[in-house]
């Protein structure tokens, strides 16, 4: 069983990215595969490596990077949504890549379940 994960909102303003992270972590812990995590709409802001939350808060961007590294996850940021919002290659945190929206549809096709998190 493989999951695709879609994150529609940026970090902090909404819980969407937090919930997606906890879900992904739990799925991996149970031994399931994650075909891809796709960041769309304001979700592209989750890839901004300049993010620097207070030290007593969770670091949403870094946490995705670290989970990605540990499990070799494919963390894909939508190119069109990212361009609009000013998320470019030079801002990408470790483990994220920018690609087309086709990567989301492909995840919908290739995964057994696509789970969407948003506002």
């Amino acid at each position, binding site marked *: 069983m493989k999951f695709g994960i879609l994150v529609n909102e940026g970090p902090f303003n909404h*819980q969407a990215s937090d*919930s997606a992270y906890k879900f992904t972590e739990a799925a991996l812990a149970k031994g*399931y595969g994650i075909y891809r995590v796709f960041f769309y709409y304001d979700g592209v802001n989750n890839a901004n490596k300049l993010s620097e939350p207070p030290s007593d808060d969770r670091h949403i961007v870094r946490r995705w990077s670290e989970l990605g590294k540990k499990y070799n996850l494919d963390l894909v940021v939508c190119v069109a949504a990212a361009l609009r919002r000013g998320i470019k290659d030079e801002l990408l945190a470790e483990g994220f890549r920018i690609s087309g929206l086709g990567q989301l549809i492909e995840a919908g096709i290739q995964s057994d*379940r696509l*789970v*969407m998190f948003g506002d």
Partner: protein
Amino acid sequence: MLHTVNKSPFERNALDACLTHAKKGSAVLLFEDGVYAATKGTAPGNTVAGVAKDLKIFVLGPDLKARGYDESQVVAGVTVVDYGGFVDLVVEHGPVTAWL
């Protein structure tokens, strides 16, 4: 089909939309601000308890706890799950419809 609701039933129409579309026997997970719909002593809580014979209703424990609720304050017929349980629901009930 698994339906998810992450919005407060007092603020938005997402819970109503979900409950009026979900087919008998489907599963519904309340999480994030959606967990308030499972709390005792509220009109949405009564609604949720009422549909729990036709739908399998779940609520995410970590989101309940974050908001200061524990299992004893959840209406009858609703099952509390953790993130691992959320994953199991997606596995068991098939495609997911998120009522954003």
